[in-house]
């Protein structure tokens, strides 16, 4: 019987949540990964392995892995560095993806490493060298402590050689050939600050692709929510109707390319849900209009933040949604966002949420 697990990456380790057989409660296991900060965690359905991108303040970065759904763990950083002669250092592993038998890891200082042996060893795949802006992003002064570098990787489900990478504060790039060559994919995006290069300088927070249409992409940007109908070649802003242009998390419906979710946040230093009123926002018409979804969520004094990888949606006929907060609450919806239930509380700061369906 298939098991549904939630992979919760937090500032103090990885947690696994599994619903009880009746589906009325959730069992929490963890913290795993020796309570190292976990920036992102994923499940590879092909191998059954859980991978967690970790960076310890004391002991550096490594990718942890479990092939038995969390019963046992190993880690490796073999090859996951720029070498003794390079001024760039791997301060953290920020993002992970699996693509047809290989594992990709995005790191800071910006670079992408790959593993072809299930995470036992790694080699440098690309630093996107030569792309506009790459000289600036390689400077240590442009890598403050919280910087993620390659903040996300998004494989193409239909093309094993193609994937997107987000360079934090710079923009989205696509490779058609496993990371050998790259093209900026930011045309039509907005930026409210000076940019020295025409094609980059955009702050892409979260990029998602509709499973039902590979050409339909959405993104939550630092300034605005945007949609692409041509696989990322061009973007159209769809912010109108939302309470804030700022946010991090985003999710797209698995079967309906026009249904998309974001969690707007105040853009200032607080970066919490506006007016202390918790809500997810949904469009059913590709951004033409938006609905506030707040049934079951706290309506007062709820100063909740949700970070870029902290909302997930599964592939069910009626998909379930989940989001985790910077204050350790985890919420779930089993009716496409119409209503929400708190399924965990008192977790450490949640940085990522992923859904895994395992045998």
């Amino acid at each position, binding site marked *: 019987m298939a098991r549904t697990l939630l992979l919760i990456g937090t500032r103090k380790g990885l947690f696994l949540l599994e619903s009880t057989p009746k589906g009325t409660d959730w069992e929490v296991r963890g913290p795993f990964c*020796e309570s190292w900060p976990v920036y992102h965690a994923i499940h590879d359905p092909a191998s059954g392995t859980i991978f967690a991108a970790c960076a310890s*303040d*004391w*002991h*550096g970065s490594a990718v942890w892995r479990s092939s038995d759904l969390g019963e046992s763990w190993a*880690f*490796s950083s073999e090859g996951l560095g720029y*070498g*003794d002669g*390079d001024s760039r250092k791997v301060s953290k592993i920020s993002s992970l993806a699996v693509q047809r038998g290989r594992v990709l890891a995005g790191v800071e200082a910006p670079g992408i490493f790959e593993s072809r042996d299930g995470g036992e060893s790694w080699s440098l795949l690309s630093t996107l060298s030569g792309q506009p802006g790459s000289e600036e992003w390689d400077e240590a002064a442009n890598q403050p402590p919280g910087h993620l570098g390659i903040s996300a990787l998004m494989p193409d489900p239909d093309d094993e050689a193609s994937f997107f990478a987000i360079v934090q504060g710079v923009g989205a790039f696509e490779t058609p050939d496993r990371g050998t060559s790259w093209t900026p994919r930011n045309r039509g995006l907005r930026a409210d600050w000076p940019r020295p290069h025409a094609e980059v300088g955009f702050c892409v927070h979260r990029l998602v692709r509709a499973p039902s249409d590979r050409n339909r992409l959405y993104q939550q940007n630092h300034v605005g929510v945007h949609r692409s109908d041509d696989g990322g070649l061009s973007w159209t802003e769809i912010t109108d109707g939302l309470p804030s242009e700022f946010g991090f998390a985003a999710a797209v419906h698995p079967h309906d390319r026009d249904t998309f979710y974001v969690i707007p946040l105040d853009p200032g230093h607080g970066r919490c849900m506006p007016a202390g009123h918790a809500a997810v926002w949904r469009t059913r018409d590709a951004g033409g209009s938006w609905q506030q979804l707040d049934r079951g969520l706290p309506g007062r004094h709820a100063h909740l933040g949700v970070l870029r990888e902290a909302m997930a949606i599964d592939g069910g006929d009626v998909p379930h949604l989940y989001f985790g907060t910077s204050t350790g609450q985890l919420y779930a919806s089993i009716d496409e966002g119409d209503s929400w239930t708190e399924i965990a509380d008192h977790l450490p700061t949640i940085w990522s949420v992923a859904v895994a369906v395992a045998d």
Partner: protein
Amino acid sequence: MANLHLPPTLTSLFPDLPRRVEVDAATVAGAIAELEECWPGLRDRLLEPGPCLRPHIHVYVDGERAALESMISDRSRLDVVAAISGG
């Protein structure tokens, strides 16, 4: 043999790595290399490219703050400390 004391944040990462290890080395770097032979991957947990000690890893030889090139003797005590930081 020098006597090396390790922090619990390190020993919990490697099966059978004890808190106290005896090493036969002339420098701090040599002691860490000796540990790496027995527990592969341990060097990466203490050093970053350079190589140099990670920013929050401190090493003391006989009570004095030490660097990788610091000399040790047969009767030295080495303390590897995961420095208090963060929250």
